[in-house]
């Protein structure tokens, strides 16, 4: 009897734990944004990206010409951006503000102006 009760409690507890894990994960999936960023010498499109604090975002990068980089120093993240393929970077901004990003692979005569801004509210 005792063993049977323990088994039922265990099953209920496991189910509850599973639900508690699934619900937030499901909610996160619903909330997660996908932001596609196209790079070409010497611009990012878009060059201003608005995000919500605490909401996960996945960037998908593509380059239309030469290898480049996406560097967001305030969050300590970067990604290569390569022609002919998609690279992904996941981020959950944990604070509001304006955060500049830039190309960190020297890509030509306009490289130093290749930058943008992430605005987190």
């Amino acid at each position, binding site marked *: 009897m005792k063993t049977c009760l323990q088994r039922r409690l265990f099953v209920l507890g496991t189910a509850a734990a599973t639900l508690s894990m699934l619900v937030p994960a499901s909610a996160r999936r619903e909330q997660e944004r996908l932001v596609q960023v196209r790079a070409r010498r010497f611009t990012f499109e878009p060059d201003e990206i608005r995000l919500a604090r605490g909401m996960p975002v996945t960037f998908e990068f593509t380059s239309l010409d030469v290898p480049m980089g996406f560097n967001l120093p305030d969050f300590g993240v970067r990604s290569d951006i390569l022609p002919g393929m998609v690279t992904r970077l996941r981020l959950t901004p944990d604070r509001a503000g304006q955060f500049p990003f830039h190309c*960190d692979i*020297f890509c*030509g005569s306009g490289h130093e102006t290749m930058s943008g801004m992430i605005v987190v509210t």
Partner: protein
Amino acid sequence: MEHTIDRRDFLKLAGLGGVVFASGLAGWASAGTPEKDFYFVQLSDAHWGFEGPPNPDARGTLPKAVAAVNQLEPPPDFIVFTGDLTHTTDDPAERRKRLGEFKGIIDGLKVKDLHFMPGEHDASLDHGAAFQEFFGDTHYSFDHKGVHFIVLDNVSDPAGRIGDAQLAWLASDLGKTAANLPIVVFTHRPLFDLYPQWDWATRDGAAAVDLLMPRANVTVFYGHIHQENHHMTGHIAHHAARSLIYPLPAPGSQQKRTPLPWDAAHPYRGLGFREVAAQQAGQAFELQEFPVQRGAS
């Protein structure tokens, strides 16, 4: 070249003195075998080929700097160029033309012991190929009067990395150098995260600093940021030099890393070169900043 008078006094007398900024930043060690003091000159970021409002005399500034250095008496033991000799161009033929023109101008320097390294404008679009045709290796070391000088290349990789192979070379070079020898590093980009938001960093610079850290006396001279900057990582001093084309804003002082505007009332303001006096066999360094022409600050 032995200096029998204090250089600061000498330069004041000669009317050449700029702003005396710092001395002894690398720290003083106990005196060993006395070596003769000497000094060298650091020139940086000439950006030959640049044209634009930030410097209406872009083609005249480098020759003025050459003339000013030629006035130094006694002359420096050697001159080092810490990168961005030329302004970048997407055209490989134009890149070589600019490198050749730069070389032609600095051939006018009286001092013939010259050391070079590339900046990203010279080397990042072809992994240093054109630069090497004109100026040779992009990383190397040499000794001078009791000081070990190391040139590091953090620009030929367009990602701004030193790279594992060069880091291994650095470790080997340091391993072959007497433990008590002062180390001076020349490089283009800062080896530390000065302001990564403007790409003022070297992605694997910390690995180089880690290799240098066990040495008691290390000083780094670099360019790239077009202004004086002085920073310590532990006991290692890092000194950025002014440029010879246009000054850039202080790190993070404005949203964009755009050149400071030309000041017609004070032409060449913020431009210049540096003299570095090594004292007591490189146990201490005195830095002195010079304008490209007299009267400019």
